[in-house]
């Protein structure tokens, strides 16, 4: 009986460790740039619901789980306004530049899923 419990515990631990490995390995990167670089003009940015730290020198490279993440910006009334969706693939980097001089700020994807770069709101790696 005790042996079975230990075996079960061991198997559970192994499964947990394995799932942790998968979680770690299934990540890609997001590079966010702001133009112009001046920090004062950039309202807080959110990736999903997570608030991002202030971008150093207008640039940040973030590790992100594989999938689609929504980049949002804090509007004047405190609500979040979606800017664009970022598709993250394993060990690949998706780059987006946010033009903060425009009102409202706008995403400029380095690569887009559709043919129209200016209009697309989905950035790919």
């Amino acid at each position, binding site marked *: 009986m005790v042996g079975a419990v230990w075996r079960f515990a061991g198997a559970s631990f192994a499964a947990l460790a394995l799932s942790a490995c998968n979680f770690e390995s299934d*990540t*890609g*990167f997001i*590079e966010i740039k702001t133009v112009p670089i001046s920090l004062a003009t950039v309202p807080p940015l959110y990736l999903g619901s997570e608030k991002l*730290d202030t971008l*150093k*020198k207008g*640039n*940040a*490279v*973030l*590790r992100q789980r594989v999938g689609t993440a929504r980049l949002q910006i804090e509007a004047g009334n405190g609500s979040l306004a979606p800017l664009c969706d970022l598709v993250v693939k*394993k*060990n*690949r*980097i998706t*780059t987006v530049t946010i033009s903060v001089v425009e009102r409202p700020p706008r995403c400029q994807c380095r690569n887009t899923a559709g043919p129209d770069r200016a209009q697309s709101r989905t950035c790919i*790696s």
Partner: protein
Amino acid sequence: MTGPMFGPRDGLRSLVLVWAALAFFVVAAAPVRPALAQVQQTLPSDAITPVEEYARQVEQLKKSYPDLAKRIEDSAKTIDEVTDVDKARKEIEDLREIVGNMLGAVSDNGTVSQLGAKALAHARGKLRTLEHEQRFKQEERQFLVDLWRKLITETEHATDDLDTARKEFAELLRTLQTREDFIDELMQVRRAAEAIRVIRELTKEIRDASDKLKSLINGIKPPGV
């Protein structure tokens, strides 16, 4: 077909450059440790923890990838030599894995970067506190302040080098994915070329069959002709 894909030596050069950047970052970050030891002799151990942890993480990062440069260079050479598209793609995937791991460590939300920010904030806070500290004699206080200033400068340098490494790795990852995308495009061209070949063969077969049919029709003579 493989010429434009594997020919450019600048790809290899950029890989080696990135390694050089990493090596520079690791070497530049290394002086944090001696300064740390100095400060450790004079300050309580709990005060130094974030800075020490940062130095330890940088050290670990250095140890984790002792043969990274060789692996990158070997893989880049293999890609240059290989003519098999699948193999080339696998090599690039492996390289992306290596670079991804490195970039993960130095990314803005990665362990080392966050520790660096924490270490810097802690050291600056400590300096501010010491500047108004009344417990010590003037020269003792000045001594401690100088040590913390030195530590802050070195940590800032390490953080700057981390920024450089981050940019280089991000750029390298982009180069690798562009190459991989190019290989994918080539594979699509190859598949399209294969499709054209099949269509041509089919056309030829249809034409042959048509010719045979024509000659058969022509060969049919009505009775009495």
